[in-house]
């Protein structure tokens, strides 16, 4: 039985803004086991980044606020941790890599020194030992000539190499959980392939759990073990990678997959786009968040939020179509 590294239960995060309260995360429950890769997929504004940042309490606490819920990271109860306790946890138990490595590294410090700084903060090593450890980390992410590279500055690294350096920094203290927030979005396709290959290699070598946040379903397909699909602040479907790609049940997941052209899509087929835009979370809709854009929308979808239905083997979805009382398409008056 795999050990649970992260257990998030019914998390609600809100932001107090001038126009009112924005409910960015509206009840997210997820878990990550040791050594597995969980991909959190969704579009901008769905709350995936906020969820991830809340695990490390990186959101400034006003205006952000954890309205309710529990986050258990290994032995730590994150919601109840003080800022001082969080500083010990960040970098050591959980670390994060971001979309733009250039803005996340100090441009005036050598890369090697930045990694050493991270190491000395959490591990009791001498300066010499920490420097050797830093070079080892750079080698682990396949940066050629790590001894020379450690003495260079971030601007001397190319985009792909900077991302590797950031991964090295994040893994330098052997965290149990690595959160990767859109790590390949800003990279070229060929460099993205390199980074994805690296993440898969690391997954096998060091057994760190990874939460991969992305909107690119191709990246998800090549790396993830389990997938959680988010929409309008909630998780609408979650399951293994095969469940989500081949046995999906939620209309949003299905629409998302249908809107991606593959090399086999012929030109005379119209791309199945999802019309409309996600709802404004300042005034979230009463029923299902996807109702306004869903072609299967029913009366109940507008009135009440769907319950979570268990489809077996860890595959869950929140949709009224899965309710046992739901009649067939013809009976409802809908179209296929």
């Amino acid at each position, binding site marked *: 039985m795999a050990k649970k590294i992260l257990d998030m239960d019914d998390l609600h995060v809100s932001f107090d*803004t*001038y*126009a009112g309260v924005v409910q960015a995360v509206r009840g997210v429950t997820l878990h990550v086991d040791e050594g597995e890769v969980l991909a959190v997929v969704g579009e901008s504004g769905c709350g995936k980044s906020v969820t991830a940042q809340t695990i490390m309490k990186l959101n400034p606490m006003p*205006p952000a606020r954890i309205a309710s819920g529990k986050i258990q990271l290994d032995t730590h109860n994150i919601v109840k941790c003080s800022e001082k306790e969080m500083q010990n946890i960040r970098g050591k138990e959980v670390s994060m890599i971001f979309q733009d490595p250039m803005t996340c590294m100090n441009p005036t410090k050598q890369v090697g020194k930045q990694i050493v700084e991270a190491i000395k903060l959490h591990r009791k090593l001498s300066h010499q030992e920490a420097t050797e450890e830093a070079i080892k980390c750079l080698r682990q992410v396949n940066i050629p000539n790590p001894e020379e590279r450690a003495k260079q500055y971030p601007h001397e690294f190319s985009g792909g190499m900077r991302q590797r350096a950031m991964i090295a920094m994040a893994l330098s203290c052997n965290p149990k959980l690595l959160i990767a927030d859109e790590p390949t979005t800003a990279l070229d396709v060929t460099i993205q392939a390199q980074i994805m290959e690296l993440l898969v290699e690391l997954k096998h070598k060091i057994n760190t759990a990874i939460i991969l946040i992305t909107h690119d379903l191709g990246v998800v397909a090549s790396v993830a073990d389990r997938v959680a699909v988010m929409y309008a602040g909630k998780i609408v479907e979650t399951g293994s990678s095969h469940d989500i790609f081949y046995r999906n049940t939620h209309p949003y997941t299905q629409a998302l997959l249908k809107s991606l052209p593959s090399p086999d899509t012929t030109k005379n087929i119209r791309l199945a786009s999802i*019309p*409309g*835009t*996600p*709802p*404004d979370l*300042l*005034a979230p809709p009463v029923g299902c968040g996807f*109702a*306004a*854009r*869903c*072609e*299967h*929308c*029913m*009366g*109940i*979808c*507008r*009135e009440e939020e769907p*319950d979570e239905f268990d489809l077996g083997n860890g595959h869950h979805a929140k949709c*009224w179509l899965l*309710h*046992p*009382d*739901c*009649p067939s398409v013809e009976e*409802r*008056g*809908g*179209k296929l």
Partner: protein
Amino acid sequence: MKQIAKERFNHVGQNLHESENISRPSLTFFQDAMRRLVKNKVAFVCTIIILLMILLSVIAPMMSSFDFREQHYGHSNARMMTVCDDAASEGCGHTHIFGTDILGRDIFTRIWMGGRVSLIIAFASAIIDFFLGVIYGGVSGYFGGTTDIIMMRLLEIINGIPYLIIVILLMMIMKPGIVTIIIAYSLVGWIPMARLVRGQIVALKQQEFVVAAEAMGASASRIIARHLLPNALSVVIVRVTLSIPAAIFSEAYLSYLGLGVPLPNCSWGSLAQLGIENFRIYPYQLVLPAVCISLTMLAFNLFGDGLRDAFDPRLRR
């Protein structure tokens, strides 16, 4: 699993009009900035102070029972809150709220007359600053290349001439007075504004919406007037607000050196200069104009800071 009635499952379909709605009220950039400014307590207090200064400068001399030139020989260097008993004066029986100076003139009236002069000089200089700086910087920034290089080098040459020398030369040619001081300050005061505007324009020129306008076939004047200047405006307004205290201080400094408005006209600077002679015995004669200068400058500076924060899109919540 609870039972659910069949009717609730009736097909309803998409509602796209609703999903394209924008629920927040429409705010222009300026409206949003003003809202944020009002919330900033420090800026709010400073606005009150500035308005108070302006109000007092306009109204107080009119309402005062003393004229600013009126001398009361028996009552020179009177302390604050002394009652006037000069039978010849109209203000007999009224209080000298701020006392009198060495020639018996009511300081309260003079402070606010001085306020008029100082504030007029400051606002006029700021406005001239604005127009000269925006036009020069706008043209230089937009056209770039050789035009920009020549205009900027010219700017640096003018900037290199010491300010005080220009003022003294002007004083020799023209009669000392408000207009002279305004011209003196404006001759070099617009330079920082021109540099700022040029910098803004150069940065904005590369933004895609400007490229889009050029691709559409827009003329240079249209791009400068409709796209570049409105977007540079917030920075310019902040700069204007901050150049006002610079002008006030400049006037005070000139008056202190004796290059300011001639007697009996007064400005805060000239009052300070008069006050320093007897500072040890009659401190209020220096302290009062100094406080006015300092308070006004501080208020404008903090107001300008608040304005800059209000305009900064990154601080928007």
